[in-house]
């Protein structure tokens, strides 16, 4: 079974700036991102007939965005979800095109992740904490366990206990992202950091999350346009082929907290998703040259690398601190700076970056980047293009129990 390997392509990418004070509606941000992606692809509004987005009750839905842009939809749906959604709905896009429901789908995420609803939900900012606790929230909210860092921490701590994973190893994930972000003019944080910077930042949740182990929160919208390989040939950009998708693959106990009933709790659902992703793409982890790991925390890439077989279980800490994930390393990860430094989009910016890498058009400090001319000098302010990249992979994280994947080829 090959899935829909190479039949569908990513032909357009669009973003807004990454900020903490957009002063704009998610409607305004969303239309800008979709407009930018259409412009990038060389598509007109009448060329787009499908739309998909994901949200957590914090966004503007497809019909409104489409109407504002004069797009007439033959298909749309708005799905609920955060991390792991990007890869999943790109997969849905290929499916609905294959089914003949439409031919060209704009996939977007628009959020005021700092000035609007904040995932971390700190006191006095963002989402007001719920006062009345009912249903499954009774199981954890009375114990002061509500934020993502709190919800995932029991897996992180157990991994540190079982395998000896250290805060220093985790800090290398942030250091790599900060180095990459320093070569990305769009990145919200573009200052290079050291391991000590991370270790010296204040604790949020022990034992795995200092402040700088946590992703940033930003206001932004992002868009990716998917169409068939046939249509892609006539558009502005080199088409980037979708080789496989794994969409929201689960562990046997799928809830944020129910998965703690089932060992090993240190295993991320990517362990199961990897089979779908690699089988359908007909490639192996060793073939992948660039990765984009959902980096809600420095720990999430560690578990994704293990789950998807880029290293053995328990070796993720060693993998991320070995230099492999740095630009110039064996398999660079999150070359834009990721959600730890570039911006927080619930994963879509990580896919957009891999599309740029595969076009050989990372918009770095090299004057000729538009023509694919790069220096491959990864010092500060210079290049962030990986040389001769042909195959890239995104690994999405919803919780330890949920994972999605996307393998893209040039």
């Amino acid at each position: 079974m090959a899935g829909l390997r190479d039949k569908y392509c990513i032909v357009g990418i669009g973003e807004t700036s990454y900020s903490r004070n957009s002063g704009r509606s998610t409607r305004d941000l969303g239309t800008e991102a979709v407009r930018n992606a259409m412009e990038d692809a060389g598509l007109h509004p009448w060329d787009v007939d499908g739309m998909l987005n994901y949200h957590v009750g914090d966004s503007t839905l497809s019909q409104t965005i489409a109407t504002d842009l004069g797009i007439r939809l033959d298909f749309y749906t708005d799905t609920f979800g955060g991390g792991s959604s990007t890869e999943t709905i790109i997969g849905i896009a290929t499916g609905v095109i294959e089914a003949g429901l439409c031919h060209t789908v704009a996939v977007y995420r628009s959020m005021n992740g700092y000035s609007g609803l904040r995932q971390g939900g700190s006191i006095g900012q963002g989402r007001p904490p719920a006062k009345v606790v009912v249903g499954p929230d009774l199981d954890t909210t009375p114990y002061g366990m509500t934020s993502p860092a709190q919800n995932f921490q029991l897996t992180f701590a157990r991994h540190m206990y079982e395998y000896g994973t250290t805060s220093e190893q985790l800090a290398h994930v942030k250091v790599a992202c900060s180095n990459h972000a320093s070569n990305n003019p769009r990145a919200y944080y573009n200052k290079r950091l050291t391991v000590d910077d991370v270790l010296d930042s204040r604790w949020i949740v022990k034992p795995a999350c200092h402040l700088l182990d946590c992703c940033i929160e930003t206001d932004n919208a992002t868009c990716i346009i998917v169409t068939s390989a046939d249509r892609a040939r006539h558009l502005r950009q080199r088409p980037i082929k979708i080789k496989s998708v794994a969409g929201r693959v689960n562990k046997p106990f799928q809830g944020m907290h129910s998965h703690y009933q089932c060992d090993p709790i240190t295993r991320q659902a990517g362990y199961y998703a990897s089979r779908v992703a690699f089988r359908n793409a007909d490639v192996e982890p060793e073939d992948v040259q660039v990765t984009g790991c959902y980096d809600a925390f420095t720990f999430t890439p560690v578990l994704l690398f293990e789950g998807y077989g880029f290293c053995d279980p328990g070796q993720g800490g060693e993998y991320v601190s070995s230099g492999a994930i740095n630009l110039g390393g064996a398999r660079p990860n999150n070359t834009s700076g990721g959600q730890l430094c570039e911006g927080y989009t619930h994963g879509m910016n990580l896919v957009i970056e891999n599309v740029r890498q595969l076009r050989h058009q990372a918009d770095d400090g090299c004057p000729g980047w538009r023509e694919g001319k790069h220096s491959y000098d990864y010092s500060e302010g210079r290049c962030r293009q990986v040389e001769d990249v042909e195959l890239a992979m995104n690994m999405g994280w919803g919780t330890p129990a949920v994972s999605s994947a996307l393998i893209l080829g040039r």
Partner: protein
Amino acid sequence: MADYMNLILEVQPTDSEHRGYYEAARAGSLVVQRCTGCGLLRGIIGASCPFCTSGGWEWQAVSGKGVIYSFEIVTQAIQPAFADWVPYPVVLVELDEQRSVTWRWGIEDETVSLRLITNLVQRDDSTRPEDEANVAIGKRVEVCFVDLTDDFALPQFRLSDEAPEHAPWPAG
């Protein structure tokens, strides 16, 4: 319904899963769901049996003794009332009644255990968090209860007198 940490904890009339759990706690009993189909115990409250799909279940009292399987120390509170508690521990307690068992639909090395999420509270005051220096994987714990109303108590865990199951982590 109960007022706790500036939260209103409410078992709604339609919440057929949580009904009875807090009343049992008020009577001094920690209960878990036991499937009447396959007999396995469930550490997280649900409507049906994830091990066999049966919709039949009953509350079963358990000893309330277990071990800290994992933990976290929250240093930045989200809920305002917890700001007075930081740094406070959340623990994943593995109860003695069901540990690392296989089930019909598990594959490879997957096993299930009976685990609850609570705070680790002080031994002599269940309304205050245990000192973070005393929290470690491997330490033995026992249930205690925070009485909130005449028919509602919140289960918590505290350190017990039993020796740790293995060298505690972190050490010290």
